[in-house]
């Protein structure tokens, strides 16, 4: 692991307020959005964010739990994964 950057994916059916509520949780953990993209693919809402967590005192487990809970209450699936997964798998 070389950074504190994470890929956050939100997948589910579209509704009002998904971005607002997910980013509110992120803000409460001082997680900053570096890049964001969202599309509707076959009626399924897909949001991908590259986010940067604070380097010190960042509790990944608590953040993942909070994001997961928010996703559940919105009826969408939220995943927080370290960016290395995606770099390592697809790039040399």
């Amino acid at each position: 692991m070389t950074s504190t950057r994470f890929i956050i994916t939100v997948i589910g059916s579209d509704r009002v307020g998904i971005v607002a509520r997910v980013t509110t949780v992120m803000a409460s953990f001082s997680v900053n959005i570096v890049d964001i993209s969202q599309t509707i693919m076959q009626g399924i809402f897909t949001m991908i964010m590259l986010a940067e967590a604070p380097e010190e005192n960042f509790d990944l487990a608590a953040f993942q739990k909070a994001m997961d809970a928010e996703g559940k209450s919105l009826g969408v699936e939220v995943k927080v994964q370290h960016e290395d997964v995606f770099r390592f798998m697809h790039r040399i």
Partner: protein
Amino acid sequence: MLINPNEILETIQMVRMEHLDIRTVTMGISLRDCSHPDIEVFNENIYEKITGRAKDLVRTTEEIQSLYGIPIINKRISVTPIAIAAESCTAPDFVSVAKTMDEAAKEAGVDFIGGFSALVHKGVTPGDLKLINSIPEALSCTEKVCSSINVATTKAGINMDAVGLMGNVIKRAAEMTADRDGIGCAKLVVFANAPEDNPFMAGAFHGIGEPECVINVGVSGPGVVNAALRELENPNLTEISETIKKTAFKITRMGEMVGREVSRRLGVEFGILDLSLAPTPAIGDSVAAILEAMGLERCGTHGTTAALALLNDAVKKGGAMASSSVGGLSGAFIPVSEDAGMIEAVEAGALSLEKLEAMTCVCSVGLDMIAVPGDTPASTLSAIIADEMAIGVINKKTTAVRIIPAPGKKVGDSVEFGGLLGLAPVMPVSKFSSEVFVKRGGRIPAPIQSLTN
């Protein structure tokens, strides 16, 4: 976007829908410094050593699982073959060692511990014999202990005395766990050319050329390969090979990344990444399904060996590029009970023991998780082992037999072990005897292929 959204979604799809996971993170631990003539002192030594070395293994592995969002299914430990580490113990048997390993595994929180093992390809020491004779009881009174015996190598030939012995040990292990469908045999492997750094059970042990402590990783991704092949439109076999290669690369990279991070956090050397695609009983996460995606009506029909050869070779080519530390078994696995497609093929009458034997010529690892009738004679089990060992010895590759003579069961029945071990339909064996051949004993000499110097 800094990372391609399609790549991100592809990775997520692999995990969510196609069962991509890390099958195992296995910590190898040397027990060579634990020897003592008093078996109680020896047991204390190994307990301390195993629980000490592995105390952070499970916690660290789980942290990495949530960091990357990639499931890590099993955490395991492998140790120096007990026949070597316990050779100097004066006790008449090594059952208490297995119990100690079981307790240490439970304390460490791991799923399995391997290394109740002996290397007897050329001959048997008193310690080897004590260990082999202890296997049936050891496997019946423990949950997590796995046992493996190497009875043949290309350099030494096949120790037919040991092969004969193992037929009886397997029978006895089945009888002693008859109340659980003979599960003892699911934790016992007989090898030719056993690798010293294999992370997969039941055959993992910490080889004598290995360092003090090491992390080895095994991946699981037949579901991903299967899905990738099914997306191709009317491909030819060259295109299929290319797709498998690319997919294997991606799966292996994931294993490499996880292995290196676990090693770094534990301060333990990274050993190897095993390229084998280990199937699971989940639908679609199946090596048989991949072969069928290539165009075979059922796994086991004519053409299966060729298709498997293509798969195995392409997996290695993709995987070798993805990791600089390839080792272990590194080939496609074809365990019957652990692969839903294999089970279906057996039940449909498409896949026989003879075809499986042919398939093991072109892949790792051997006749794996195969149930046969409970009344199969020990000499027939030994002869099945001898055939498989010959394939390994002559082809300079690892082969293995993990066979369950299911107590009280006959062809048409099945045995269920649950979890990753799955469900095995009972397969017929030849009704003709091999007893005189097996009883001759001695050694089948090393083949001419061994004279490479």
